């Protein structure tokens, strides 16, 4: 049986439907990403799966245990790292980890091997108060505390939000290590570029999954033809592209613009001519492969 199974989970807050019927399964040792913006329902889903919140309807099982009937058993086997830093700010690094170890009848010494790779980065600061740690170190401490009781499933709710690109890379490296130990990881993120680091992802918006698949398949399934467009005046180019009937959408993407085209009417030479007549120079139009972010925007429109 898969370690995470969710069937038609619904949950509303008053009139707001936070989750509109979510179903998915995660296999053992998989890194499964829930990818979507703030307010999409990610945290609600995590809270339900970690037995901290009741769904209005639907079913969920973690390692075969029911989130309602067997909540006590689930709490023994999952590690949960909430989006907001939730350790004791006034306790030291060492006190925090000892506290969480003790809650689960274990000790840092006993399970040191589990957290070693992560904990040794913060061990030199073990006497420091958790509240006085840097963002990156807080994150490492929180992950160590979530791991100290040897969970088989790890829930990480937006562990990289507000974290700089270098620390984000480091964090994903740590997740890969944990995966290698056979831990099943459910992780959420608003950063689309992190999708490619997951085995499978679910794209979530307004309480519904837009798609569930491997990152490669999501990109390969994209049913639009996508081009990159550059000229000497990028902001103007974006506006001009949107006014062309051959172009269905145009968005800035870093140092280029991505456009989806109407295959019937699009002709590269004609578009280049039109852009030239609008005053653009150094025009480059190229057919490209979509990114997860392109896919997300297209799926979100439907």
């Amino acid at each position, binding site marked *: 049986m898969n370690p995470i199974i969710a069937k038609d989970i619904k949950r509303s807050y008053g009139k707001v439907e936070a989750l509109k019927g979510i179903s998915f399964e995660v296999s053992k040792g998989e890194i499964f990403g829930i990818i*979507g*913006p*703030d*307010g*999409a329902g990610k945290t609600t889903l995590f809270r339900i799966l970690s037995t901290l919140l009741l769904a209005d309807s639907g079913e969920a099982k973690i390692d075969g245990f029911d989130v309602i009937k067997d909540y006590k058993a689930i709490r023994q086997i999952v590690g949960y790292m909430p989006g907001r830093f939730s350790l004791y700010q006034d306790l030291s690094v060492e006190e925090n980890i000892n506290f969480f170890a003790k809650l689960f009848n274990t000790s840092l010494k006993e399970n040191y091997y589990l957290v070693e790779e992560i904990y040794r980065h913060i061990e030199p*600061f073990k006497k420091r108060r958790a509240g*006085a*740690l*840097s*963002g*990156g*170190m807080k994150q490492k401490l929180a992950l160590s505390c979530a791991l100290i009781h040897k969970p088989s499933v790890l829930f990480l709710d*937006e562990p990289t*939000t*507000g*974290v*700089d*690109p*270098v*620390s*984000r*890379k480091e964090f994903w490296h740590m997740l890969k290590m944990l995966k290698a130990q056979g831990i099943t990881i459910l992780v959420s993120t*608003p*950063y*689309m570029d992190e999708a490619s680091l997951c085995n499978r992802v679910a794209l979530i*918006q307004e309480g519904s999954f837009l798609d569930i698949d491997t990152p490669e398949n999501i990109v390969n399934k994209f049913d639009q033809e996508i081009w990159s467009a550059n000229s000497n005046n990028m*902001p103007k180019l974006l506006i001009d592209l949107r006014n062309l009937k051959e172009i269905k959408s145009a*968005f*800035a*993407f*870093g*140092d280029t613009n991505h456009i989806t085209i109407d295959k019937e009417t699009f002709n590269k030479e004609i578009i280049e001519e039109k852009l030239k007549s609008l005053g653009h120079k150094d025009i480059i139009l190229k057919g490209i492969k979509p990114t997860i*972010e392109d896919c*997300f*925007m297209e799926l*979100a429109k439907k």
Partner: protein
Amino acid sequence: METVIKVENLIKRFGNFTAVDNISFEVKKGEIFGFLGANGAGKTTVMRMLCGLSKPSSGKAIVAGFDVDKDAEEIKKRIGYMSQKFSLYEDLKVWENIKLFAGIYGVKKTDIKAKTDELLRELGFESERETYVKALPLGWKQKLAFSVAIFHEPKVVFLDEPTGGVDPATRRTFWELIYKAAEKGITCFVTTHYMDEAEYCDRVSIMVDGRIDALDTPKRLKEIYSAKNMDEVFQHLAKKAERQAD
């Protein structure tokens, strides 16, 4: 072109820790200036000084024509500020938020009403005038928060991770608002962890351990570091950081 921010040998120490270590730079009127750096590099400390909320240990910073050390109150009247974490009062209606912030920023009562109508029209928010902010989608909140931050037509607007967690389409329309503000001559001083957004800036600075280790146009930075994109530039520079504290 008029210089709106001028920083010279700015230093900020907390005890024996040097958070900001002798930085100098200038930002022009209407420029979109990307202020990047790893967590703990000192970005927030610099922003606080430039907003007149914290005094430099030494060095000088002039914002909108006033010295941050001597005329902090004058600066506060001439800047706007928006962050992802705190933006608007959820339990006030759209028009109430506009009125409150406009009043705080010192816009004349008689001007507030007319300008509110204009703003709501421009954003296409006329039907939301009486809506409580908590009922707005996140993307709308962010757009409204930005519009409120520039309602009093400041010289500079400081945007602290304004697009964190926002969906991809809204993130892009948000940047179109930044472009519009810059065209009107408002200097936009932006921090972000999205490296594609660094490409939308006129110039980008990258802070490492309290210093500014790089400052140029995105195009030039990519050339200097032979990088494919700004993420590579950032990884290259920020990896060198030795500092641990935030």
